[in-house]
């Protein structure tokens, strides 16, 4: 089952299934190591629909809600 990344819970590990945004967002996420197939751990979620903090290949990245909503992920055990 797939969800968008902004709906993932804190400390949940997910795998990127697809990125639904346009060219710009795909490229920018790709640069930070986020491609289909990569594993993301959600570390924190800010209050008031603020950004989420994820761990990707050992690096921390903050993603705004809008951006996270464009990343389609599936849960990983």
């Amino acid at each position, binding site marked *: 089952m797939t969800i968008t990344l902004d709906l993932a819970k804190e400390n949940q590990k997910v795998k990127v299934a697809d990125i639904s945004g346009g060219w710009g967002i795909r490229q920018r996420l790709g640069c930070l190591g986020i491609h289909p197939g990569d594993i993301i751990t959600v570390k924190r979620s800010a209050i008031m629909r603020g950004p989420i903090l994820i761990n990707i290949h*050992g690096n921390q990245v903050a993603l705004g809600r809008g951006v996270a909503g464009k990343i389609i992920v599936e849960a990983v055990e």
Partner: protein
Amino acid sequence: MRIALMGQPNSGKSTIFNHVAGYKAVTSNFPGKTVKYELTKFNLLGRTVELADLPGTYSLTSFDLAELEARKYLLKGNVDVVINVIDASLLSRSLELTLQLLELKLPMVICLNMIDEAERKGIKIEIEKLSEILGVPVVPAIALKGKGVKELFSTAYKIGEEKEIGKTMNFSKDVEEVIAQLSTQIKKKQINQEFNIPERFLALKYLENDSYFMENYEEKSNNLFKKIVHFQNILEETHGRQSDVVISSERHHLSMNIYESVVSLTKPHTSLIDYLDNILMHPFLGYIFLGLIFYLFFNLIFSVGKIVEEPLLDYFYRLIPLIEKSINPNTLSFSIISGIIQGLAGGIAIVLPYLFPFLFGLAILEDLGYLPRMAFLLDAFLHKIGLHGKAVIPFILGYGCTVPAIMATRILESERDRFIASVLATMIPCAARMTIIFALVAFYISPQAALAIYILNIIVIIISGKILSRLLPEITPGMILEIPAYHTPSIKVALAKTWLRMKEFIFIAWPLLIVGSTILSLLQFYKTDMLINNLFSPLTSLLGLPLVVGTTLIFGVLRKELSMLMLIQAIGTSNVTAVMSTTQIMTFTIFVIFYVPCVATITVLWKEIGSKRTLFTVAFTFILAVILAIITRFIY
């Protein structure tokens, strides 16, 4: 020989640069602080070498202005050696840029920077193996401590002399086939020679749909354009994804493979600093600490400044009566001498005591890596004024100086965001205006009143942001921001950075201040200041300020702190409260904070957002200042 430092954001290019240039490029622990390149010349093995510190770029398919600047410099074609600086603790991701740089077929050296940080994270890299795979020398370094920098440059020199080029790595077979076919087409048409880049590189950029190369191309001939689309379609059909995703995934896998073959992972050493985020980024505690940090910061500046300001001012104002005894106060020479002394005093006694602790504190926060955390905490709030979290970075820099703040808006993706952030950044009280708030309001009224001004300022900025984002209703692209690991700040580097920023005051503003106060003395001597004051009288009387304030407002456009220093001189005493009521001091300060950005700011605005929008900003801030000052006059 020309050497260029190229690498992903926050990999330590500027730190390496500063080793040979002296502290010339501002370094901080946040991605994207270098927005324009800096050049230096230095002597390397007996030859003069030019070194360029390029803005950090994640990829050669660039989007933001700073990244484009780096790519443009590199493609200009007069770089002899590229030093690809890599944050060793982020090796796999960094290799994606390295692979693209190799495609440019330029002589190259890799600098594995922060090798100590990588080891701390449990990443051990086989350096020789990496060098063998890529076909370029790899030099490990810890730039912050200067380790490996010497070897790096001597290796770069050697490679530049020998013009040695690294290997080009191959993607999957079917992708390579498409690349080869497109490359042949490009070669036939000799398009790549126009750009002065290898055909394979150009073929990849076309397959990645890079708008810069595509646009350039569409004008020229439709024939190749059709072929590009054709090849893009082949990749899309065979891989089931957009062609740019196919290429970036290929590069990603290649990097991962290289990474896995050269890295052995051990257990990471955790230290106290790793737990800092549990507090500083906590959804509740994070905000409390944010408030606390700024409150302490405010108090530090005030207490340090006050201790130094009082005795220094006393000293200088005791000098004037002494001179009066030896020179007749009604002569021209006395006017000039007292003008010079007051200019000197203004710099030493009023500005420096507040400027130094502020800039030093800011340097420590920057180097620690707190700014990106603030962006994370404040993203939701900034969305309310139509921006996103990254805008925090220009805003915080704006408390130092508006000029770099406006430059820093380049890290924002959309033009609209850059415009709104630039206008708002001009309203943030920079260090010059801070000295006015501290030396006038905090010193003569109370520290609480000064704090109130800062809070009022933030409220006004929020309201202005709301108005501007209503006028330009466009959704801000979401925030994508790397949160780098904390670094323990180095006092030496922080002092060097503080000095670099203070130099601006000492060598540009201070001489201006001395000249300005001498001119004011002369104007007073010949009684011409009254002419200017009368010209400004409609404004000063509207705001309920003394007539003598008029002249000082002109000086304030040159440099904001001048208006206060001139005020002290114009009213003829350092005891401002004897001449002005507290309401007048408040009104004056509020007006000076908001009215018309200084000349340096207007110049940079003109370059960054264009003439029309700059004039809008000038008018907007002036009207705002008048309204706020009138309100202060009647309410406070």
